[in-house]
């Protein structure tokens, strides 16, 4: 990239944003509000969904602004992002689905009282 525009102000803004997201995550992680932690939505708690989404937001911030994906040519960016997103989504879905199935069996066969 040859254009000589400095991104310094933008970099500090992104840093402030990432810090803010991390502070929110840590705050929620310590307080664990019962309303969020104990309410199940789509297989896990609302709190876990919030953590997951905030993590993806942070990942977007790092990749787009720190790794300069924003400044790459559109199809170079897509050549990087799409395979990763598709393959990881695919892998995660099957591994977690399988883990859930294993859990049903394990929990049925595990005894928590001794006589």
């Amino acid at each position, binding site marked *: 990239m040859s254009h000589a525009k*400095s991104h310094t102000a933008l*970099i500090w803004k992104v840093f402030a944003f990432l810090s803010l997201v*991390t502070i929110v995550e840590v705050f929620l*992680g310590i307080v664990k509000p019962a309303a969020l932690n*104990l309410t199940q939505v789509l297989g896990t708690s609302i709190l876990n969904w919030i953590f997951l989404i905030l993590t993806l937001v942070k*990942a977007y911030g*790092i990749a787009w602004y720190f790794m300069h994906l924003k400044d790459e040519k559109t199809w170079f960016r897509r050549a990087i992002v799409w395979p990763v997103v598709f393959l990881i989504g695919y892998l995660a879905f099957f591994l977690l689905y399988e883990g859930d199935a294993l*859990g049903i069996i394990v929990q049925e066969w595990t005894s928590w009282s001794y006589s």
Partner: protein
Amino acid sequence: MEAIVADSPKGGAWSGGGSQPFGSSYGKMMMWFFIMSDALTFSGFLGAYGLIRFKFLDSWPIADEVFTHIPFVHGDYPMYYVAFMTFILIFSSVTMVLAVDAGKHMQKGKVIVYMGLTIIGGLIFLGSQAWEWKTFIAGTYGAVQLEDGKIVQFVNGSGQQVSLESFASHTPTDRVQHKKENGLWFVSEASVPAVTLQQVKEGFAQNSDISLKTELINLETKEKTIVSREEANKFLDKATRVVQGANLTENEYGKTLFADFFFFITGFHGFHVFSGILINIIIFFNVIIGTYERRGHYEMVEKVGLYWHFVDLVWVFVFTFFYLI
């Protein structure tokens, strides 16, 4: 045929012609493809962790009860230290991207300062990671393992965990250190455990306010189940050994697999940080001796920057899956 010159932004490694697919140099594009493959490797590891976690959803260790320490401070402070580590890594990412930015404007002095700060940030993170490992390996309270592998911890009347030493009896024991020559030749231990199983059992019988906490999570309250004294005695009848701390074969906080995944994934990430620091140091000295000034561009700083940001990116996910969720 032209020689392969990976650092030339004008063709070279793209076998002459001077064209740059996607407007990206050879080296940068290959760094991106390496990062993609590395991202898939980490997803494989974290996915495997997710599978095992879902498998033992009702009995997985609760991170807030495992990582509760801060250096030089006593007490129970979950999350703070690992949050500090996360900030260090994000901040070193910022200094790295500032170095890249300065490189684009050919400001050698600024590149040196920012890369130096990045290296220091990486070293602080790595040191923190080492401390985190040391604390996890040493353990906090100690626990007892049953013959089927379950871990039981001890709590006082108000449900707070207590250490084995605090209630175990002081009956003399003839327990000796297990060495290769006096026991199984493939098993040995570094020292005699501070308390024996017999002392724990006696101490439990003498202290009627102590009870047992099992690994089973009450999914309504997301807390581990504390059983009655009567039930606890049945658990203790099945006890086989005392566990202090965590390693690849035992874990006082619960499932051994938790320790295995923790050591493997944070270790693999820590090794990435370590190699990132080494690469950063090499490039740092190259900047100082003016290699990139003579070359006419600082693209190498941008390439190692990509790797460094990737290490930060992975930590964001490790942090979420090990400490938050």
